[in-house]
């Protein structure tokens, strides 16, 4: 009595109209970057100079390194506000090691290990005790930097070895700095991990529905813990670079970096609610922020006015696709 119908065929994917690629987030960012680049070259005769362009990258490489890991963390639905404080603490520890006579390899090791340790501490609090990460890291942000203050007080550490200067000041080839090279390599690695591995897939899945992931046999806690460790690790690396670039350590180092790194991530199209985003977007956003700040710097625009531009850029870039879609649907209220 029951007719058995042939199973319906479901295609892998529908042919997407070209417009969806043209209007993708990354395309929007590329357009913006090109426009800013053009405006900069037009507005300042000093902009189109290899050394200027090289100096420009220093405005974002360190924050960008942190932003790469932060992007994964935010995609998984968590956030880390303590990254700048981790930079400060790691730098302080490196400073202490210098006083004890440590050499460059040891210093780098200490920076990385301290970063990793702080990240693990955040990760433990969040995954073991099930606390909301935004609150935990507001706490550890004070705690980590507070420890740096307790250790250093009103002192500064200096006297870093000559060879240590390479990380923040050295060049790999011609105008290509070590920082830029490291940032690009790290971006490649993070791109691969996020978009091409099952680990990355799980990060996206967790950001969308952690409970269903747990039921699906994804070790949610472990992955989040790893992401916090990675963020700590990248902060540790950034700390090595900044400390090397400044050649000294004070507890107030890297103040406000957390918000800039998060701005980069969000500008890069990562959903702050988790579950969506791409590394390419974050890298483009890092370049855009560097272009904006450096370009305005060449015109001697005060930093605070630059920050207005960044803030506007953030809101406009996020609002643009929404407004555009509504206009097309003709239902803009």
């Amino acid at each position, binding site marked *: 009595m029951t007719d058995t119908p042939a199973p319906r065929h479901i295609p892998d994917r529908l042919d997407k109209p070209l417009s969806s690629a043209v209007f993708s987030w990354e395309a929007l960012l590329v357009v913006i970057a090109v426009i800013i680049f053009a405006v900069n070259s037009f507005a300042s005769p*000093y902009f189109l100079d290899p050394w200027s362009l090289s100096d420009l990258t220093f405005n974002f490489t360190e924050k960008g390194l942190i932003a790469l890991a932060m992007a994964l963390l935010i995609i998984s639905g968590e956030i880390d506000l303590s990254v700048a404080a981790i930079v400060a603490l790691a730098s302080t520890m490196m400073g202490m090691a210098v006083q004890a006579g440590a050499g460059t390899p040891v210093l780098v090791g200490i920076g990385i290990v301290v970063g990793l340790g702080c990240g693990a501490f955040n990760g433990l609090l969040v995954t073991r005790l099930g606390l909301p990460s935004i609150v935990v890291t507001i706490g550890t942000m004070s705690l980590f930097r507070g420890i740096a203050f307790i250790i250093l007080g*009103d002192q500064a550490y200096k006297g870093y070895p000559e060879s240590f200067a390479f990380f923040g000041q050295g060049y790999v080839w011609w105008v290509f700095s070590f920082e830029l090279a490291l940032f690009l390599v790290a971006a490649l690695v993070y791109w691969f991990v996020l978009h091409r591995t099952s680990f990355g897939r799980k990060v996206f899945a967790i950001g969308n529905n952690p409970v269903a992931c747990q039921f699906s046999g994804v070790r949610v806690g472990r992955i989040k813990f790893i992401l916090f460790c990675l963020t700590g690790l990248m902060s540790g690396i950034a700390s090595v670079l900044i400390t090397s670039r400044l050649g000294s350590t004070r507890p107030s180092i890297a103040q406000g970096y957390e918000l800039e790194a998060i701005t980069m991530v969000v500008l890069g199209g990562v959903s702050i609610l988790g579950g969506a985003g791409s590394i390419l977007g974050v890298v483009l956003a890092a370049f855009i922020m560097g272009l904006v700040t450096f370009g305005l710097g060449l015109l001697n625009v005060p930093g605070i006015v630059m920050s207005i531009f960044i803030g506007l850029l953030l809101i406009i870039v996020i609002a643009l696709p929404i407004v555009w879609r509504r206009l097309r649907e003709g239902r803009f209220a």
Partner: protein
Amino acid sequence: AYAENVKIALVVKSLGNGFFDAANKGAEEAAKELGDVDVIYTGPTKATAEAQIEVINSLIAQKVNAIAVSANDADALVPVLKKAMDRGITVISWDSGVAKEGRQLHLNPSDTNLIGETIIKLAADYLPEGGDVAILSASSTATNQNAWIEAAKKVLPEKFPKIKLVATVYGDDDSAKSTDEAKGLLKSYPNLKAIIAPTTVGVVAAAQVVTDENLIGKVNVTGLALPSEFKKFIDNGASQAVALWNPIDLGYSAIYLAHDLAVKKEEAKPGATLSIGRVGKVTLDDTNSAAMAPPFQFDKTNIEKFSKIY
């Protein structure tokens, strides 16, 4: 013509501070006097070394001829300033100094030891009997404040044996935190006779706290303050006197010296005596630093007049 002018950047710790705005006045004055100078008045909005480095990087890219910087951090700026010097830019520091390797010369507003002594003396002058005093400083990382406090501590035992320094606290140049700290001082040390604040934000906060707690006449607030920002508290008696050097002269001298070094009119080396237009002459010590005039004292008799100038 544009291309021939000497471009000198006056880099300050943070924009918006009245002290630096006054220094800029002096800088413009020097530029006019020298004729061939363009002054770029710039700096970060937040007084951090990182922000200042970004500013300096963009100045290097603009190929300025000279940079005159008041540093947020004596050491952190060294690498970037070295880079500037490598690219042929003249670098001097003024007001708040940079470590020796990072600049050609440093122009102290006044002699560090002298400032240290002055801030104590300002309190001691009104405390013939002696008594407890406390220092409310800016941020714990501020180079110049720390140097002055060190100097002050050194002169205390010999020159002011009756003055007892009971505490040093930091208000981070943040009015709210400075207020909290000042209140804390008054609570913890009921016998406190004076608060010394060698920073304009701190000194205003402390004076307001003393006014609010009805302690005028009991606790004297003193330190370093811009007359225009502090007049009110000299008038109401919360403070007897404060001191400061002339920021206009300081800005003037910084531009003047930077110009002379940039056009190779002068050379900075230990022992050299350099002339600074209307301000006079300074002599470099063996760290290539020079000190300008002693701090100038403001009290009821002259504050009215100076508050109109800076």
